[in-house]
């Protein structure tokens, strides 16, 4: 059998043309051209789920508060190592990339986010965040983003509304009763195993057959571009799982895939024991992947369309446990990132005195963030998705 990679790289059959925006693609004609142009103006949301319950207190650190060191005798980060945000709080030292994003006006920290009567079960609390309902009777597998796209906001009927990148199964958050969600694992799914000619459109008459021919042409083109980029490495991403998943999302966005939500997960935050090193590594992976993705969007001229939300199902107990780890807690920080984000902090750091069963109290309901994203960014009526009106936050630059 032929060497596929060699063929793809050297043969004239498969050109190595750089990415073309979908609306310039020569196969797109007529009203599909308009659709593509319209689609290219749509705002996109990228979600990063920090799975397992991120220790928010060691992520955005109240370094100036003596109670912090007292609650965290072995896990506390010394004030001089914290990457200072202001005179009270700072990032974990492994979050240099996040600090850079803040400095370049592309990161916002929403503090003390949670919901009333916090549930400390991973499964239940994640279901609450996914469904945007605290009552488990509403946990029917159709999440807030799936519901957002149930009623015809997609421009092109053949487009997936939501895409889960990575090898996890499709999260409830992006499933809807009607919205189309797919999962895409990096690498394999977009690679042609052997070279093949795209069909010639003239051979296929009729609306449907020529649609199929065009779709095949377009898909092969995306595959070739994916392969080309893979070897040339135009965008710089760290060699981590999350970065790979975000890179795939970036690739899809650049190819004009048309989906409006991309969903990535980073597991591992359930740090019950000896967490210091693990947690630092996770935060570094997260921050660096996020920055690489946003830089890629910026370099591709797509940063006007992209906003990132990063959340975890709960924070962790204020007082560390006996095994240099932390147990399940309540409120924590949520990150919003992108060119149009109002950079800085929203809300204040939760009190270390006024606790709820040893956990940080929430001051901002996560559904306020959802409502703000839906209304201000995605242009979707939030009440329809969230069943009620939540007070919005000023998340975008004025």
């Amino acid at each position, binding site marked *: 059998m032929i060497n596929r990679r060699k063929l793809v790289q050297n043969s*004239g059959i498969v050109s190595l043309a750089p990415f073309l925006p979908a609306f310039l693609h020569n196969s797109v004609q007529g009203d599909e051209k308009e659709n593509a142009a319209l689609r290219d103006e749509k705002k996109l949301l990228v979600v990063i789920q920090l799975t397992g319950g991120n220790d928010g207190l060691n992520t955005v650190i109240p370094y100036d508060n003596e109670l912090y060191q007292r609650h965290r005798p072995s896990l506390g980060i010394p004030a001089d190592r914290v990457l200072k945000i202001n005179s009270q709080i700072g990032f974990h030292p492994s979050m240099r990339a996040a600090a850079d994003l803040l400095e370049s006006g592309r990161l916002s920290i929403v503090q003390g986010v949670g919901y009333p009567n916090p549930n400390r079960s991973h499964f239940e609390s994640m279901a609450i965040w996914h469904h945007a309902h605290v009552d488990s009777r509403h946990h*029917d597998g159709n999440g807030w983003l799936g519901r957002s796209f149930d009623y015809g906001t997609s421009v092109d009927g053949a487009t997936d509304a939501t895409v889960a990148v990575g090898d996890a199964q499709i999260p409830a958050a992006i499933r809807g009763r009607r919205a189309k969600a797919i999962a895409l694992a990096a690498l394999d799914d977009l690679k042609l195993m052997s070279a093949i000619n795209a069909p010639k459109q003239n051979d296929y008459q009729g609306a*449907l057959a020529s649609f199929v021919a065009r*779709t*095949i042409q377009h898909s092969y083109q995306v595959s070739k571009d994916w392969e080309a980029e893979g070897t040339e490495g135009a965008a710089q991403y760290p060699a981590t799982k999350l970065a790979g998943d975000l890179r795939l999302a970036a690739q899809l966005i650049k190819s004009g895939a048309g989906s409006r939500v991309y969903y990535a997960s980073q597991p591992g935050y359930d740090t019950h024991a000896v967490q210091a090193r693990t947690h630092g590594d996770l935060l570094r992976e997260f921050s660096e992947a996020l920055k690489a993705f946003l830089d890629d969007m910026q370099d591709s001229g797509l940063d006007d369309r992209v906003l990132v939300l990063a959340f975890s199902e709960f924070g962790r107990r204020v007082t560390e446990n006996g095994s240099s780890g932390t147990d399940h807690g309540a409120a924590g920080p949520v990150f919003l990132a992108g060119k149009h984000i109002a950079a800085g902090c929203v809300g204040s750091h939760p009190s270390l005195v006024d606790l709820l069963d040893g956990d940080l109290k929430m001051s901002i309901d996560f559904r306020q963030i959802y409502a703000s994203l839906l209304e201000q960014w995605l242009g979707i009526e939030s009440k329809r998705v969230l069943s009620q009106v939540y007070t919005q936050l000023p998340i975008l630059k004025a």
Partner: protein
Amino acid sequence: MSWEPYTPTSDQPWDSRRTVHLHRRTVFGACWAEIERDLEGDPQDAITRVLQGKNRLGGLRPNFESKSRLICNTALDTGSVDRLAAWWIFRCLHSPFPLEERLTLMWHNHFATGADKVGNLRLMYRQNEVFRKHSQSQFGALLTNMNEDPALLVWLDAPLNKAGRPNENLAREIMELFALGIGHYTEQDIQEAARALTGSTVKQLKYHFNQSAHDKGEKEILGERGHWTPQDLPQILLQREAASKRIAWRLVSEFFGEGVVSSELRDELAAGLRSNGLSIAWGVETILRSMLFFSDANIQSRVCDPVSFVISTIRSLELWENAPSTLAMAVWIKRMGQQLFQPPNVGGWSGGRAWLSTKSVITRSNFASVISEHVNAQTTAPTDQINSLRLLLGGGEVSTNARDANSEEINWLHELLANPNAFLH
């Protein structure tokens, strides 16, 4: 054009294109001997063979049912959704009655239930057997069975629906998706139907009516007042004209391409269903025998679903012995966007053009590549065989430049299996 039975005319002759169309659209494609046989005879006889499960000549297995049972039991023991899907693929590929499998798939899509949430593969399997058993029954039998189907009840939160604490999930989908369609009920009807359904639950993997959770009060559903129980709801819905229209819609969207059937003709089919006790068999037979089904507008007018794409490929190449395993096929089909027993949501697969995303097109092409390598290793293809294959695969072109410049590199069979016409049926 109408529901009149098809008779060949000079404009619409009984030719290989129409013969292939019958097989591709209804029974996952054909092997060449089946086409030759049908071409020589009367078209209505060919349709009768499809309706009665006598159409297949190739790929039949001795002791099919006992083999099927064995594969199924193994799948259930492992608890693997992929393996249960492989069992179903085995049936689609080798069953003497492929139309039954096609209709079972149609009902799985109609009452779309997902294994993940149900959490018990055995319940998924049992539901599948109900779809098969009632695939051509009166629709009422199917609906009443589904109204008490453990997998469906878990899927739609029926156990959470209790007197005083209603959960509308099941009631809403029964009205909106399964029986009536949007616009034929009010939100009030859904709330009342949810009350009627309280008490329906699942106990020890079986349907159970929990008296104490049932709302015994009076309900008014679609204008009818009574102390309705879960068992009353399907009966109320089946009387509605909307139910016949919903079934007509389902059958039309299964067997016709985009825009082939006007709303008037669909209503005519619905009226026929009403005078035939909502018999699915009547509806399917009326459709398959019709002029409309064999009209030019209906041929090659749908993007075929992944199950059809994969199985018609195998059948047209007659890869009975050396085919990839059915488990491998199930995984290919899943990657093409149709994970059996795991539909994307309760609305089922969107189907149509939505089958083709970048990922699914690449996967179809890769499947074609694997199959063509497989075949080339064993046979060389004479021209008449290539031509038969072209017909069996919907009549695609192999581009000439493939053979000109790169005859070594580009596999003609790969190109034929992955050409746009092969993606249609």
